Every structure is written in structure tokens, then in C-alpha cells.
């Protein structure tokens, strides 16, 4: 675990050496504001809560998380530094976890920077802050799931672009599998169990309750399992073909 933290520190350090890091955070903040104020009708709703802010998070993460995670392993493969990293006395799992911690921390940072919005709601009215804290936690958990998928995809290729596109597509499947459009396709011919199963794979389904402040054990467990599952897949992929 100690070694994972050393790796995580390096990743975070590397991320902030380039201006891209600040551009990334700026885009994150701009987009959350755009979604909240323009698409979410933050003011016109006349309610002191952050629901319009949180409800767009899955769509925001859909592009921003693969963008941050695409270089994680693809770049290591391309520059050959993967050979350096994996011949140090670290296990593949430690390296994978280290990188995950680093990017998850950056996502937490990005989320924390949206705090002024929270203060605004508190200034304008009397929101239920418990709900907001729960929704923040849920959003961060969901970003971890997006991240685990993207990191796993990044282990497969040397190309950051390929890593990005494949990760977006995979994440998109996880997001839309709970939407009516997808479920309608199945409803006509599949049994209810199948439809429910497909819906339950969706990040949306599980995040919906969270964004309203309900932190149910099954939703938390779902995201944790997605994270663990995809990270484990990444470990297996790296173990099997270290040199591409």
C-alpha cells in the first residue's frame, strides 16, 4: 500500500507539471456551471438544492474521466517506462491501485472546487445540506466507476486516442443502459428480469437516488464492485501482456 501511495504521488505530481492540468480543471468547472445554470435552470426552479448540478454529472464524467485517464497506461506503454515501473519491486496490483488513487484524488479535487455553488445555495436559501453531502459522495463514487473503466481500457493500447474513444463508448453503454430508449428495445420481447438486469447495470439508475441524497447500501456496493471489477481486469490485462 505504501508503494501505491508513492506511485499515486508521482502521478498527481506529473499531472500538475503541465498546463493541461489547469485547463482540465477549468473545463470541468465551466461545464458544471453551464449544465447547472443553462440546462438545469438553476434559478428558475426556485428551489434551494443542487439537483440540476448533480443530475448532469454522469454526462460530464462520460467525457472528462476518459480524458484524464487515457494517458495513464497508454503513455507508459508508448514511452516504454512501463518496463521501468514494473521491474521496480511493485506488484501490478499496487501500480494499478496507485494510479487509480491518483486520478480519483484529482477528480475529488475538481469536485471540491465546485463548492462555491454549494455556498451560493446556502446564501440564497435553506437547502438540506445532508442531501448535498450525500450527493457529492455519490458523485465521487460514480466518478470512480468511470475511472476504473477508463484505466482498464488504457492498459490495452499504446494510443491515448484509442484509449479515450473506447473508454467513452464503454462508459456510454454503462450510462444509457438504464435509459428508457434502451430499455424500450428490450421491453417488447424480453422478460422483466432481463430488463431489470440491464437497467441495474446502469450508472444512471444507481446515481439517481444518490443525487437526491439517498445513499443506499446497494448503490454504494454497486459502484465499489464496478471499481474493483474493472481494476482487477486491468491487473489481469497488464499481467498477461506487459509488452505490446
Amino acid at each position, binding site marked *: 500500500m505504501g508503494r501505491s501511495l508513492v*506511485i499515486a504521488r508521482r502521478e498527481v505530481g506529473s499531472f500538475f507539471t503541465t498546463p493541461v492540468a489547469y485547463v482540465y480543471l477549468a473545463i470541468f468547472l465551466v461545464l458544471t456551471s453551464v449544465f447547472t445554470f443553462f440546462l438545469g435552470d438553476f434559478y428558475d426552479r426556485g428551489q434551494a438544492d443542487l439537483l440540476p448540478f448533480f443530475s448532469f454529472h454522469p454526462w460530464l464524467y462520460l467525457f472528462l474521466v476518459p480524458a484524464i485517464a487515457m494517458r495513464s497506461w497508454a503513455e507508459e506503454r508508448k514511452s516504454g517506462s512501463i518496463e521501468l515501473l514494473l521491474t521496480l519491486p511493485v506488484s501490478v496490483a499496487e501500480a494499478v491501485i496507485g494510479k487509480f488513487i491518483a486520478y480519483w484524488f484529482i477528480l475529488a479535487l475538481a469536485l471540491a472546487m465546485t463548492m462555491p455553488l454549494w455556498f451560493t445555495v446556502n446564501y440564497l436559501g435553506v437547502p438540506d445540506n445532508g442531501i448535498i453531502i450525500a450527493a457529492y459522495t455519490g458523485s465521487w463514487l460514480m466518478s470512480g466507476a468511470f475511472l476504473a473503466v477508463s484505466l482498464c481500457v488504457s492498459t490495452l493500447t499504446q494510443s491515448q486516442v484509442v484509449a479515450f474513444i473506447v473508454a467513452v463508448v464503454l462508459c456510454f453503454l454503462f450510462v444509457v443502459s438504464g435509459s428508457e430508449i434502451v430499455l424500450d428495445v428490450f421491453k417488447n420481447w424480453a422478460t422483466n428480469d432481463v430488463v431489470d438486469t440491464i437497467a441495474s447495470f446502469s450508472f444512471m439508475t444507481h446515481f439517481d437516488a444518490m443525487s437526491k441524497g439517498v445513499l443506499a447500501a446497494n448503490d454504494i456496493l454497486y459502484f465499489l464492485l464496478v471499481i474493483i471489477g474493472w481494476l482487477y481486469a486491468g491487473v489481469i490485462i497488464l499481467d498477461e501482456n506487459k509488452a505490446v
Partner: protein
Amino acid sequence: MIAVEKLSRRFNRITAVDELTFTIQPGEIVGFLGPNGAGKSTTMKMLTGFLTPTEGQISIDGLSMEKHTKTLQQRIGYLPEGAPLYNDMTVFQFLHFIAGVRGLRGKQRKARLTHVIKKVALQGVLNRQIEKLSKGFRHRIGLAQAIIHDPDILILDEPTDGLDPNQKHEVRELIRALSSDKIVIISTHILEEVTAVCNRAMIIANGKLCFDGTPSELQHRSRYHQAITLHFSYAADISGLAEIEGVDEMVVNRHTGDVTLFPEAGKLIMAPVTEHVSHYRLPVDKFTIESGRLDDVFREITTGSTAEVGV
């Protein structure tokens, strides 16, 4: 001691390494020689635990690499081919990171960092970004990270590739200066490097071990070993040279006019040749005893031709 037994590695049916068996004792500086794609790097990647062998065993001091990868990696320092580093970090950040992953802490970390930075002379570039440094510096940083934890085993994949002669000299000095109870394995396709640094040479071609011996044994296999090359200041009668006892063959280089006399197997021809030269007052202005041309031997061994004239 490194013991390798019947080591093989295949990539999608292409055999990169084919049943290698050898042992390496502490104190040996081994040079892996071979053409590009011969399996040198693949062998090294398996020795460092990066790749798992398709078949065969690697063990270091009785511990198998498969089961004790992490423990053994603690004892190995490795410079991958082309010295890949984290380009976005500064030199100091990078070495600090490596020391951290290697488990060095506090005072010990500081002491080791100071030591390696001094040893490979990186003081001037500590706060520069690695990306912006020359190839020579990159190789030195690669070496620094490989020796930062004072490993028993040092594996360097083409440590001098692409360096200028001064830098090559520095790297060789560094390798030689390591203490004598360590194992050093370097791969190279520069033959002079093997005679300059190593005390054991292994030639690998097509994944197989083709030669294993000392660099001087390698030179002995050359048909030029103990051959004599003469240069004349003006044209002279050289017909008698081929008749000298012990001389197997005489070859005249048409471009330079150099005459090379190859000895019969195991014979020394210096004495009779000098006698002949002084007796007939031949106008010799250059007299060279060859120690063996490694590139000939190398070509012979790796291309599989068995014409070993004069050995």
C-alpha cells in the same frame, strides 16, 4: 548466483528465446552479444521479472523468479533499452520517486541520492526536466536509477547505445568501478565494449546460446588471431613471405597494399617473420600483430557459417 535453465519465450508462435541454459556467478561482468532481434532484450526482460518465460526456470540464489518476483526485484537494478524515463519529471523528482518505490526512507534515501548523483555526475541538471536533456544525460539518469539501491545484480540493456565516445567511456568506467562481488549483465552489439568491460561473453543468435567464454577466447577464434600485418614503404619482393614456416596463407590488400600473414593453427610466426624481414632487408614501416578481429568471429558465429579458417 543466477541460474537459468532451459529458458524459452515465444510471442505468438515466434520463438524469441530458445532453451537458454547458463549460470552467472558473482563478480562476473557478462556481455550479451548478438544481432538485433536475437533475443538479448527478451532474455533480460525475463531475468528482471518483467516477462514471464513460456518455459524454463530462472532462479537467483536458489529463489525462483516466478514465486519471489518482488524479493528478487529488490536486488536487481535494471536499465531498459533506450532508457525510458518519466519525461515530465525533473531529474531529482525522478530519482526521489525511484528511491521511494525502492523503499528507501529518510536519511538513507538522502545518502543514496547524494551518492548516485555524484557518481554519475548529475549535479548540474538536477532541476531540469528530463524531456529536455540529451541522450547522454538520459542514459546516466537511467544508470543512476538502476544503482540507487546498491543492487547485487545490475542488468543494463544497451547502456552505451547512441552515446558519444566520451560518454561511452564514462559509462564503462562506471560499470568497471562497481564492486567485484556483483553480477553485471550488459547487452550490446558493439564488440569492442565486450573486451573493454566484460570478463565473460555470451553470443545469442536466434534465441540460442552460440558462444559462452571469455572475450579473449572469442578473439582466439578469429582467423586473425596472431596474424601479422605488414606495410611496406615501397614495392618489394614479398614472394618469400608465404614460404616461411608456420605461415598458412598470405593475403594482400589491394587498396592499402598491406600484407597479412595468417599462421597455421596454434603456431606463433612473429620470430620467423621478423628474421625473414631483416634477412632480406624488406622495407617494412608498419608491423602489427593482430589480436583477433571480433566482428569476423561475430559474423561467423551468428550467421551460422562454420568456415573457421586458420583456427
